[in-house]
């Protein structure tokens, strides 16, 4: 503590569980991609870069993040705007931005920027939070949600909204306000269904509630995913032996449905192991949040780790058939640089917030 500049801010629990997850992820990706070495090596490069980013981001003092949060939000929104203006359209959606050889999903940054900014906005406000502050926060959350939703990318938009709402909730939003909002949401749901949702989004939700309507069309994915997981049994079919995966009955094996690959090839025991690592990671974050040095750090750790958890649970619930299909990768396992970078960035911030201590004034 006497030599703060010689200290490396580092949390071994988070670090090693992420190493474990990343190694397992590469392993699973190898099987899910039908042993495609180039996909796996590219992902490996992302993982290495991610760890470096995480360690670098862990070092600055939380106050720096707090002061930069406004700029960060504006920067993220600016990138979103550029995506909207110049981004290529892929499968009817504009989500990607290309700079040189690197292309990434600009919305990923908002998952970090929104909770960071709201935490810095709310950390010194009196309890309970006043209406004016609630209103400003909600406007920011809604704008970010709406911009991403229009790309369209419902999954990420929901995650961004969640990340903001988690911070708002943790900072002491009154219960009566939340109750009122819930009632309002239920009343307005027909409006959301009919006007805001795209036809393909509506269809996904419809097939979720009635998958046998169209077994070869929209509900193919979810049926094949269930068959893959279910046929894995207790011990799984073995590495590279999953017929659903290897014979391409399962869609999107490298991205959204990689959990089904794990279920098929490694069985219930494999699933149990994977979920244990995730749970351990979350419990560690929970501990860091409770023991953080100030309210800003608590809100950021809470907001980011809960966002991570929501991301995880939405993916898991989707592939096992508990939720309708929304595009959402399995954190640290699915192929994809953007989401992996934003995850390592988030955990870098969490480690920074959790490991910088300040002596309380006596």
């Amino acid at each position, binding site marked *: 503590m006497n030599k703060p500049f010689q200290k490396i801010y580092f949390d071994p629990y988070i670090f090693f569980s992420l190493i474990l997850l990343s190694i397992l992820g590469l392993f699973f990706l190898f099987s899910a991609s039908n042993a495609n070495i180039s996909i796996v090596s590219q992902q490996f490069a992302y993982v290495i870069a991610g760890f470096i980013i995480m360690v670098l981001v862990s070092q600055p003092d939380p106050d720096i993040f707090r002061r930069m949060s406004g700029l960060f939000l504006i920067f993220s929104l600016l990138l979103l705007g550029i995506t909207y203006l110049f981004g290529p359209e892929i499968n009817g959606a504009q989500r990607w931005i290309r700079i040189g050889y690197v292309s990434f999903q600009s919305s990923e940054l908002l998952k970090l920027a929104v909770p960071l900014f709201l935490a810095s906005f709310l950390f*010194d406000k*009196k*309890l309970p939070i006043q209406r004016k502050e609630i209103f400003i926060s909600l406007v920011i959350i809604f704008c970010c949600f709406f911009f991403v939703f229009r790309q369209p990318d419902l999954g990420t938009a929901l995650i961004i909204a969640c990340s903001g709402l*988690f911070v708002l*909730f*943790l*900072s*002491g939003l009154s219960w009566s306000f939340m109750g009122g909002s819930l009632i309002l949401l239920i009343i307005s749901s027909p409006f959301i269904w009919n006007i805001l949702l795209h036809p393909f989004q509506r269809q996904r939700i419809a097939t979720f509630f009635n998958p046998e309507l169209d077994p070869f069309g929209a509900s193919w994915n979810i049926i*094949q995913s*269930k*068959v*893959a*997981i*279910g*046929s*894995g*049994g*207790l011990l799984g079919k073995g590495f590279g032996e999953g*017929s*659903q995966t290897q*014979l*391409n*009955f399962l869609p999107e094996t490298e991205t959204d449905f990689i959990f089904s690959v794990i*279920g098929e090839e490694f*069985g*219930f025991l494999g*699933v*149990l192991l994977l*979920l244990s690592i*995730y*749970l351990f990671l*979350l*419990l560690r974050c*929970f501990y860091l*949040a*409770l023991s953080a040095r100030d*309210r800003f750090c*608590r*809100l950021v750790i*809470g907001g980011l780790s*809960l966002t991570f*958890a*929501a991301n995880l*649970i939405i993916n*898991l*619930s989707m592939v*096992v*058939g*508990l939720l309708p299909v929304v595009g959402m990768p399995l954190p640290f396992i699915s192929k994809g640089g953007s989401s992996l970078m934003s995850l390592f960035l988030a955990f870098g911030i969490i480690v920074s917030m959790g490991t910088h201590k300040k002596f309380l004034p006596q």
Partner: protein
Amino acid sequence: MIFEERQIEKNNFSSRAILLFGLIILSLLAVLIKVFSLQVSGYSDYQLAALKNKNYAVPVQSLRGEIFDRNGKVLVKNEPTFDLITRPNLISDIDSFLEEIEPVIFLSQTEKNRYKKLQKEKAFVNKELVLKKDLSDEEIARFYVRSFNFQNAFIAKRYRRISDYPQIFSHVLGYTSRTDDAYKSMPEIPRNNWKDAELSYAHGLIRGRTGLEEVYDKYLSGVHGQRVFEMNAMGQLVKSLSFFEPVKGSDLYTTLDVEAQQSAAKYLGDRRGAVVAIDLESGGINVLYSSPAYSINQLSNGMSDIEFQNLINDPDKPFFNRALQGRYPPASTIKPAIGMYGLSKDIVSWDFEMKDPGFFTLPETGRVFRGWLKGGHGKVDMHKAFLVSSNTYFFSLAYQADILELSNHLSNLGFGQKVCLDCFDEDQAFVPTPEWKYSTMNAGWVKGDTVNLGVGQGYLVATPMQLANYASLLATKGQFIEPSLVILGNKKKSLKIWQDDGFDDLDWAKMHTALLGVIESDFGTARSIRDLKEFQVAGKSGTAELVSLDSKEAYLEIRTSELLRDHSIIIVFGPMPNPRYAVSVVIENGESGGAVAGPVAIEVLNSLINE
């Protein structure tokens, strides 16, 4: 913020964080429970679903059994042909492949076009494709010399269903043809997979359509095998997982006789007609021939549309099986049956005599029924009535009959019934009753109808099969065996017994003597065939009138139109006194029964007996 406030804030945060993390843990638990229900509780269902996804089972066609005659001669066999089969997924450039194979195998432009059209599709799913069917010996030799150049092609044996006697056995053996119903035999293989069946026959999945091929189809067809491929989501075959060999169908040993059938065909010639012969010892049918016939080889293995249309439109109706479906008035051949009725009902006796003036006058209306000989036969008793075939005698006997009793009697002799155990599409022909006449013609039964029945004319019709069955009943004195083409497992069929208290052994003996006299005596109507053989034969001939005429002049006029001429009919059995075979012959528009149908029947008997 002051310290207390910070403490309140921290407590507030902690409780809310506990709430949210609690919810997260509960959600993870829900996911875990769901995974457990999929992987542990629902395992067997999902495992089955995964297998159903990837396993692609195709049937492997079994060979049909062969069909033999009673002496072990092959009637229908499987003859190999050779097809050139390609593996399109191994062909990268289709044009250069065809160019390369052209000097080896002759290909027509349509064959090339068809191949080009299907090649891509089959290549994508790794399935095989036939390039050329029925290779010649030279093509096979040329291919084998160069086969190292063609790793993407091979020659496969494909069979054809062939008979060495395609014409004479056409109706009785029947033909096979392609079927869309093969999938019903193996419900475990999805219907759609049958299009990729591994074929053993060049003609594809076949089944028996007529004749023995149809009746014994299950017995002949065997059990298809199965090959299971692993298939991916795009429908591509990845590899073969398992193979169950097909089981060849059972061979069918019939009671047919090649030589006798050949005689029937030879002596019937190109006339329209039918011959049926039955072995009295077993009830086995030795001859079942209908003329004109067609080639089952052509029908089973592909025939041009024009040839087929010619057969369909032929006025002689070659597809019509006259032996089983031809309906002919039995004419005078019915007289033994009428005699049996008269004797058993005590209407007449062997000693009863009457005068035959050449016609019978119906007392009620004065209608005249003529005999075949002008002036009549003088005094006739029953024996003479059979020999000279006196119509007057049987007109007068039938006049005294009760029509219901008589119909019943004829039915007991097999008329109006299906009599063959395993014949394809046998017609049961017809015995008339007053009830039938009233309901179809809206007219009452009159005495004249019964009188006509007495000489086998009028509404009564019978098939050659029924006539042969009736002949075997007469030959065995009522103790005959049901006719059939196949006797499975050497099982003795039970006797069919006809008996009547009014018709005893003595009556049977006298009946045999009389029917023997029809052919062997100097007065018999069929004495012209007496010298065609070296053994004695009993029988009864008949001439079925197609037009009822009252004057000889009109009759002569009618004779000029062939299709209105009388049918010639005979039933015989021999060698007497212990008959072994019974034969019936019908020749359409052949006129006089004994002289026309008789020689055919005798030649068939000759070849059966002299073997």
